[in-house]
């Protein structure tokens, strides 16, 4: 590789890293507790616990809906969801209006058998950490900004891999030159951590970027696929009365045999039209449990209106979520995720240190700058 090419990649690596450094540190630091958010919520008492029951007969969906509305008088239901990892709990989302602001949503857990209110969901300190991680309390612009930082991170990783060759071509793999200066030692650690975690960092970084586009993708789906699904019902007003949720669930199951309801979106919410319920169905394998299939049902009669697989970009979004969260391989994978997150923090910190020390070294004598920038061992 020519010196000029190395210099060019070095500039790309330095500036993409520097611009995104603070935000990447924020993402890594907030991402660390989020890996264990369920355990932390449980420890702090913010995770609702289902009651112990002798009978396993689950309450009807309508009974859960009635309990949710009774717990939040004067408000309306937006969604009811079932977590496959928490079979004893049903979660209900209420708001002042079906299209109310997300920040006004109240999320409560109910016992799946007795419909007893178990407590609020998504509250406590982890909510603050989550908001910092996803949008820095800046809403959609904040999300898109962090997505941009994620893209810079990906460019920094790729340019780092390109630079790995000129920096290490005369070294054995995993060499740490302990007898050299502190800067060289940290350069070796930076290179080693960077190159061994490259695949994980790229996957987590890019799936994070995809997640920041979730709202845009949903809007695109609504404007195209959903619009064509509800086109035959154009001009129909919002339902004057709602169909029985038990009918909605039963018909959705008939339409998607072998699948379970992941969540029901009420008419007028962002996940459906103003006239239809949307039941999002999931399979029972690790992969199909992530790939949801919407079934659209008439809001007044509960009749099935249409059902189609989600478009590729929304399926990509759904698959990208576990790959970003690391929550799909049990506790050992979570611990590995945390270790890789910590290594990324060390890599970012060491990169910053290398840049600062290089600036300090370059200050007294600006000549021969490249030789200092690329300390290729002889």
């Amino acid at each position, binding site marked *: 590789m020519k010196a000029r090419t190395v210099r060019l990649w070095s500039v790309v690596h330095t500036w993409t890293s520097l611009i995104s450094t603070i935000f990447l540190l924020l993402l890594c630091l907030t991402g660390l507790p989020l890996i264990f958010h369920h355990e932390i919520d449980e420890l702090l008492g913010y995770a609702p616990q289902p009651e112990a029951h002798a009978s396993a007969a689950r309450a009807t969906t309508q009974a859960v809906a009635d309990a949710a509305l009774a717990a939040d008088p004067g408000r309306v239901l937006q969604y009811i969801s079932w977590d496959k990892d928490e079979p004893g709990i049903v979660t209900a989302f209420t708001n002042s209006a079906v299209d109310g602001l997300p920040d006004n949503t109240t999320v409560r857990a109910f016992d799946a058998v007795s419909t007893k209110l178990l407590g609020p969901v998504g509250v406590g300190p982890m909510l603050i950490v989550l908001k910092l991680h996803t949008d820095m309390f800046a809403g959609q612009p904040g999300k898109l900004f962090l997505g941009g930082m994620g893209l810079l991170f990906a460019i920094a990783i790729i340019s780092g891999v390109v630079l790995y060759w000129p920096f290490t*071509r005369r070294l054995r*793999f995993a060499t740490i030159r302990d007898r050299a200066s502190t800067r060289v030692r940290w350069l070796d650690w930076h290179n080693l951590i960077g190159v061994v975690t*490259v695949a994980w960092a790229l*996957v987590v970084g890019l799936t994070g970027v995809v997640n920041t586009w979730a709202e845009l993708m949903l809007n695109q789906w609504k404007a195209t696929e959903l619009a064509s699904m509800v086109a035959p019902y154009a001009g129909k007003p919002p339902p004057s009365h709602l169909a029985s949720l038990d009918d909605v669930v039963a018909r959705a199951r008939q339409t998607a045999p072998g699948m379970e309801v992941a969540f029901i979106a009420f008419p007028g919410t962002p996940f459906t039209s103003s006239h239809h319920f949307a039941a999002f169905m999931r399979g029972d394998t*690790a992969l199909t449990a992530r790939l949801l299939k919407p079934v659209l049902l008439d809001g007044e009669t509960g009749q099935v209106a249409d059902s189609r697989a989600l478009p590729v970009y929304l399926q990509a979004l759904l698959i990208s979520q576990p*790959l970003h969260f690391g929550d799909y391989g049990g506790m*050992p994978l979570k611990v590995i995720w945390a*270790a890789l997150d910590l290594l990324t923090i060390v890599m970012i910190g060491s990169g910053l240190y290398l840049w600062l020390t290089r600036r300090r070294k370059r200050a007294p004598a600006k000549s021969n700058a490249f030789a200092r920038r690329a300390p290729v061992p002889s």
Partner: protein
Amino acid sequence: MHGSPDRTRRWIRVFAAPVLLAAATITGLLAALLWGTVGQYVAWVTVGAPVLVIAWVWVRRGSQKPRHFDRMLRGK
């Protein structure tokens, strides 16, 4: 990769381990998603491999330092 055999050998020496680790990581990330419980076990080993490499380098450095110290004490 159109240089001399020596350059090719050096390229392999530099990139063989990182490429293998990257392939292992990707395999593990997908395995847990596609192969259920067995995939989870695969993921623990393969996604954890980079962490093990770093731990191994760290431990190796730690165990080498006393040996240097011993050699210094022996005047070698």
